[in-house]
């Protein structure tokens, strides 16, 4: 076995590689969406696929998201494994009826006879200076829809692993790709990509003893940064990267919170009705007697995503996270 040097790669490149490997491994895998063919997608994630596998495997569709997802349903019914790209978070909304009323329910409706192995890639979240409709955190909608799996990578290796796992899943999986991490780099060996983890496992990105930050996707690097900054204040913060929102890894999360006794959920999405409420509630249900303080939430505000010139005030940053950590009632317990 030859040792291959780890090379830096971006998350976008890892996603491209995952699509390519999946298409090479299984002729049933088809990519479709707006501009995914000739152009290689507006984020270039499908770059080269039409050339390598032909336009019938990587297809520029007409501009109609319900049509894209609806035809993908039909393709999956016939045994294909479509991978659909929604160009931006807010442009997935026209496909919500197909998603909620069919994609999420077809297996259940047919008593397991007609599973739908459809992967839905959604570039999501802000921090890229995008104009309105290009920065939504729409994960709450997907989480509230039983029948879907929902995953979101925070590292280059996970981007590869989760997308491969999504395509291999016999169930529909929504892959939320943090736009602002597309160009984040990591040393990752594309010649020996990670084995595909099963969907549904969180990971402790940083061990710590004072309090646990529970987060995912675009907020993972922010939390790691906050954890570094917290050392100056004498806090040793743990950071859990959920990776999968559905199914939820209660085991890993609860174990982490039980260890530290304090927790803050961090995400870009708005707070009210967002993922943090679910996460805080389930952590509290499981760890009530271990908690020194209520599980707090650090999130975007409950407002339509703001214009680029103001987005830094909206997005949870290191300061907002540490302010929340400071409110974890340190006097009372420790």
């Amino acid at each position, binding site marked *: 076995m030859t040792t291959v040097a780890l090379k830096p790669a971006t998350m976008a490149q890892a996603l491209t590689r995952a699509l390519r490997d999946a298409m090479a491994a299984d002729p049933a895998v088809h990519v479709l969406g707006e501009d995914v063919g000739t152009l290689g997608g507006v984020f270039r994630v499908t770059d080269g696929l039409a050339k390598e596998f032909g336009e019938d495997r990587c297809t520029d569709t007409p501009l109609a998201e*319900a*049509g894209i997802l609806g035809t993908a349903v039909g393709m999956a019914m016939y045994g294909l494994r479509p991978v659909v790209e929604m160009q931006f978070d807010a442009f997935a909304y026209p496909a919500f*009826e197909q998603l909620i009323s069919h994609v999420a329910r077809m297996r259940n*409706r047919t008593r397991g006879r007609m599973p739908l192995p459809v992967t839905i890639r959604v570039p999501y979240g802000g921090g890229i200076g995008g104009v309105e409709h290009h920065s939504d955190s729409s994960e709450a909608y997907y989480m509230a829809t039983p029948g879907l*799996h929902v995953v979101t990578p925070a590292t280059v290796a996970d981007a590869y692993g989760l997308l491969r796992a999504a395509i291999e899943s016999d169930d529909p999986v929504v892959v939320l790709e943090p736009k602002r991490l597309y160009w984040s780099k990591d040393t990752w060996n594309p010649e020996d990509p990670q084995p595909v983890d099963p969907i549904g496992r969180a990971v402790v990105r940083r061990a710590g003893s004072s309090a646990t930050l529970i987060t995912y996707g675009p907020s993972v690097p922010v939390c790691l940064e906050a954890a570094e900054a917290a050392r100056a204040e004498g806090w040793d913060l743990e950071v859990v990267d959920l990776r999968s929102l559905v199914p939820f890894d209660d085991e890993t999360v609860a174990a982490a919170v039980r260890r530290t006794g304090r927790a803050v959920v961090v995400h870009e999405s708005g707070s009210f009705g967002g993922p943090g409420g679910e996460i805080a509630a389930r952590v509290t249900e499981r760890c009530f007697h271990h908690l020194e303080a209520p599980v707090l939430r650090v999130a975007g505000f409950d407002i339509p995503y703001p214009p680029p010139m103001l987005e830094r005030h909206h997005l949870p940053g290191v300061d907002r996270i540490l302010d929340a950590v400071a409110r974890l009632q340190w006097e009372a317990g420790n």
Partner: protein
Amino acid sequence: MTVMEQRGAYRPTPPPAWQPRTDPAPLLPDAEPYRVLGTERAAKADPELLRRLYAQLVFGRRYNTQATALTKQGRLAVYPSTTGQEACEVAAALALADRDWLFPSYRDTLAVVARGVDPVEALTLLRGDWHTGYDPYEHRVAPLSTPLATQLPHAVGLAHAARLKGDDVVALAMVGDGGTSEGDFHEALNFAAVWQAPVVFLVQNNGFAISVPLAKQTAAPSLAHKAVGYGMPGRLVDGNDAAAVHEVLTDAVRRAREGGGPTLVEAVTYRIDAHTNADDATRYRGDAEVETWREHDPIRLLEQELTARGLLDDDARQRARDAAETMAADLRARMNQDPALDPRDLFAHVYAEDTPQLREQRALLEAELAAEQEGTHR
């Protein structure tokens, strides 16, 4: 060669060099609905086919009346009847080969049955049992689609997939006049035409979407006129003329099979019964209108033709009736049995594998069931 290349790539050309990309003339429907019965064309129709259609219409009508009766006995929660529309339902099923796929709307259980699905299995949704009682792959019938027009892109995707795989499969998708107003109708027809997918769209224009008449649904000359806007042929047919519907659909299926792409067929028919048993049609239409259409009953039209041409004797008539009664008696008997549903199945097929969350919820339900069993429930 990709599908796109086959169709010839379009490059934008400035108006001085403008070339219409497709000739619209052959895509436009005739001014009048196509008819066979009672016209000279009937002479060319295959007598065997006409007799078969007749038996199926009699069967279909009986199925409709029996299912409606079952609602009155509380054995069906709801039934959207196709009385008066049997010609469309039956022809849709008969126009397809075994390997083809049918995509029914919520109203089209008769088409599903005509395609070979056991009537009891076709009706599970409507009796309050699990949604799809049949295996979609056994008879190649998609689940009944309740959200209107959403099944149309599915049909396009399936047909496209089959074509990409090199399989000789056509999909026929059914939708109502009301359903044509939905965005999914538009997107499906457009995808079908761009991909030249082997799919046939059958719009049953039965005059109403629940209470809303066609004039409030569209201002178009006909629904078939929508076809040209997608670059596919639109055909207008008398939906109560079983021979005509069968011929038009068979042509469209053949065309799709041969690589000619999709067709939009509008069948003009009428919903004789109320929207469902729960609806009160007198609130929005008069008896006189219904009577006009009863005159134009699909069974009567076909029977007149067959009788005039001496193709239907009392024996055949009786055989058709007997077959229908046998089905009805069997349906009654089996629908009178209460299906045994297991509440634990609520979790069985949400995912291929239960999530940890669903395992917890299943345990909760099991505890509740045990308490109920033991009478220890509060």
